[in-house]
């Protein structure tokens, strides 16, 4: 009987000051299954996993692994017991090489010490299998989030584990990588390894998972085989009400006036990735940027936002040529940029939600450098409500919020600026389905108010659903542009594939 479950967590309870994060939750996983853990932002998924891996101490409850009661005091102990983890926030060492990050803690040794040759070769092999092309001897921090995420995955699945915890591994991956990941996951399942999979992308869950456990507000809602659940039902259980309205899909056609484009970028070339990419956004238009991993989308966003002054090509705002020296110049012209790397480039982790949300708007709510705290609080209040950010209050430290809620605070930081153009780099990364719908609605809404949006997303579906026009880039060059009827996931994929084919042909 007992042996049926590889892992059983019974009556797990966890309190944080002001938050009852887990309320006597039962959670169990069979060997050789892929088990989805679902729930809204702040439902307690990550907390449950952190308790499992010994990062947090539980208040009450017991954990039974392989028929034995266990209680881990550190991730090391959990690792030794065969639990391997990918945490929600990428937790790797920025200055160490990719290869080292994959092997840290279990480096192959030879007589004279660490066998670097083997470290690098193995890392290269693992990553190649996963379709990632990167120089494994380079420091991790010289790569973007997607590569980092793949490295974290590579690290987790290259150990001998019984159970692998994956807390939102796909949030910064695009379709191709997700497919690779799933292939790996299936292989692992065949070997009898259990996987706990957390994701906010429903399609993924239905594609890969066997069982689904749903949490809401720290309480267990249900556990059932994936096959017995419909999408609608799953979402309804997660949000605790009928979800028909959440699953709406719509794609508007650009209604705005033509006129001078709000932003026109021409022939942008930088020192690393960009090779003459061009782009035009009109007022109130939502333009999507699609491309494979490392296509240069983030780099382009940074040039547009003035974070990389080292480029050639021209930028024009409302027809006037500009040259930014720093992001604040772009901000002054009404630009906003919500970064894809929320930990490294977004949050001020020891500061409160209030301080985090208003960091960019301060000059506007201050007179002669004096912050008008009343107005500040009003704004924060308004956005906590309108984005339904789950926090005990404005003064909560942002690091104590769940990942998705942190993302919402960052979004609010820019939305409250009422920008002319907002660049959203993976804005729904780690955001639950309900909130995602809200954010998508919000994007439509702000576009309706005449704000232009540049949307970068790895979820093609999201682009198709929201954008008026999608620009496809590859290797820092435009390879296509899709609009209205032509705009579909299939067409985007086809554009990319064609380009790869052409190039491949040319090469041979």
């Amino acid at each position, binding site marked *: 009987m007992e042996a049926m479950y590889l892992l059983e967590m019974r009556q797990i309870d966890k309190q944080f000051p002001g938050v009852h994060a887990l309320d006597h939750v039962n959670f169990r996983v069979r060997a050789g299954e892929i088990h989805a853990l679902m729930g809204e932002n702040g439902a307690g998924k990550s907390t449950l996993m952190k308790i499992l*891996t010994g*990062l947090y101490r539980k208040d009450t409850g017991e954990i039974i692994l392989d028929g034995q009661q266990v209680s881990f005091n*550190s*991730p*090391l102990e*959990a*690792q*030794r017991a065969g639990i391997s*983890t990918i*945490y929600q926030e990428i*937790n*790797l*060492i*920025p*200055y*160490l*090489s990719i290869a*080292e990050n994959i092997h*840290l*803690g279990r*480096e192959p*040794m030879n007589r*004279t*010490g*660490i066998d*670097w040759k083997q470290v*690098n070769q193995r890392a290269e092999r693992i990553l190649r299998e996963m379709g990632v092309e990167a120089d494994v*001897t380079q420091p991790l921090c010289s790569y973007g989030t997607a590569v980092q995420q793949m490295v974290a995955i590579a*690290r987790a699945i290259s150990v001998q584990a019984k159970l692998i915890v994956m807390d939102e591994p796909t949030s910064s991956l695009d379709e191709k990588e997700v497919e690779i990941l799933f292939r790996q996951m299936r292989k692992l399942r065949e070997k009898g390894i259990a996987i706990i999979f957390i994701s906010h992308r429903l399609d993924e869950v239905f594609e890969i998972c066997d069982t689904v456990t749903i949490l809401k507000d720290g309480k267990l809602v249900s556990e059932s085989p994936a096959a017995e659940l419909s999408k609608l039902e799953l979402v309804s259980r997660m949000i605790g009400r009928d979800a028909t309205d959440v699953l709406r899909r719509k794609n508007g056609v650009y209604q705005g006036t033509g006129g001078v484009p709000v932003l026109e970028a021409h022939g942008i070339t930088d*020192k690393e990735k960009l090779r003459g990419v061009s782009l035009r956004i009109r007022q109130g238009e939502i333009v999507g940027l699609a491309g494979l991993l490392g296509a240069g989308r983030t780099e382009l966003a940074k040039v547009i936002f003035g*974070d*990389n002054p*080292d480029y050639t090509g021209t930028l024009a705002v409302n027809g006037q040529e500009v040259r930014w020296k720093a992001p604040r110049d772009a901000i002054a012209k009404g630009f906003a940029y919500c970064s894809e790397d929320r930990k490294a480039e977004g949050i001020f982790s020891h500061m409160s939600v209030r301080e985090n949300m208003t960091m960019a708007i301060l000059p506007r709510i201050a007179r002669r450098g004096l912050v008008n705290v009343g107005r500040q609080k009003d704004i924060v209040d308004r956005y906590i409500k309108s984005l339904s950010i789950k926090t005990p209050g404005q003064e909560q430290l942002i690091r104590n919020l769940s990942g998705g809620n942190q993302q919402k605070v960052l979004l609010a930081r820019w939305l409250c600026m009422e920008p002319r153009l907002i660049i959203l780099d993976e804005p729904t990364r780690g955001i639950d389905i309900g909130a995602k719908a809200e954010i998508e609605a919000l994007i439509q809404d702000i576009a309706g108010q005449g704000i232009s949006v540049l949307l970068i997303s790895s979820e093609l579906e999201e682009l198709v659903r929201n954008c008026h026009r999608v620009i496809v880039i590859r290797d820092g060059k435009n390879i296509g542009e899709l609009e209205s009827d032509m705009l579909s996931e299939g067409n985007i994929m086809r554009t990319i594939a064609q380009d790869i084919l052409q190039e491949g042909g040319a090469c041979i």
Partner: protein
Amino acid sequence: MKKKNLFYAFCKKHGVVFALLALILAAALLFPEFASYGNVTNILNQNSMIGIISLGMTFVILTGGIDLSVGSLAALSSVLAAVLSPKGSLAIMILVPLAVCTAMGLLSGLIIAKLQIAPFIATLGMMMAARGIALVMTDGGVSVSVDTGVAETFRLFARSYLLRVPAPVWLFVLLLVTGLYIARRTRSGRYVYAVGGNEEAARMMGLQPEKIKIAVYTVNGLLAGLAGLILASRLGAGQPVTCDGWEMTAIAATAIGGTLLSGGRGGLGGTAIGVFIIGVISNMINLQGSLSSWWQSIITGLLLLFVVMLQSHARANGTGSTEIAG
């Protein structure tokens, strides 16, 4: 490691290497005595103590910490050696100070890792405490000479030569090579980098940052004790009030050598160069010989400024990173 990586590492260190070469060139042109055997041996010999301390300091700083207690520990070690010398046993004179300094390093490490007190404060405390103990042992700061019974043999510790190179220099080179090996080829060495790079991540990856930090401060205590022994042997006496400010010199050497004070990046090679940059500057000032004390400080400051500017320039060109200082 791949060739490319080594080259990359070399490029990043370029600035310091060039700065040292520039200083040496300038010194050799300005002062004919500079390149003499005697002077070169002096520089190597004099800086081997700071060098040894800086090696430990580099590991400490790589974990994102700092250790202010090294100067006091070295002084304490020299005092212990001298105070114990009447017992007539070289083994006691060497082992006890090393053991005491190691223990005090361990204590710093425990305070930092277990009580989670900022390294700056924990080691500031240790710095004051060690100095206090040295003063208490010597009746308020009276220096103690090494007992004549063992003085001659103990003197050899710092004053014997191998291939015309003094023993402390060999010791420094040996420790440097060992350190480089540990840093590059052993797990513990890599974990030091990992903890400094991102302690939280290191913990999540199953490392034990506490253990690594404790180890690093313990080793640093040991090395400070060793430097103190060399000093005692060179001076033939234990000195409770000496080595003031050595911690700053060691930190400066480490930072000049390109190790980030926030941890995670840098290495011993750069530190060794940093030590000799400071050493050559001090030697140049002595060879110049007519600068007043105040001009000595000012010129030292200006030369350091020159070195870091050169280095920061090289770094900016090397990686083009937009990271913010601090």
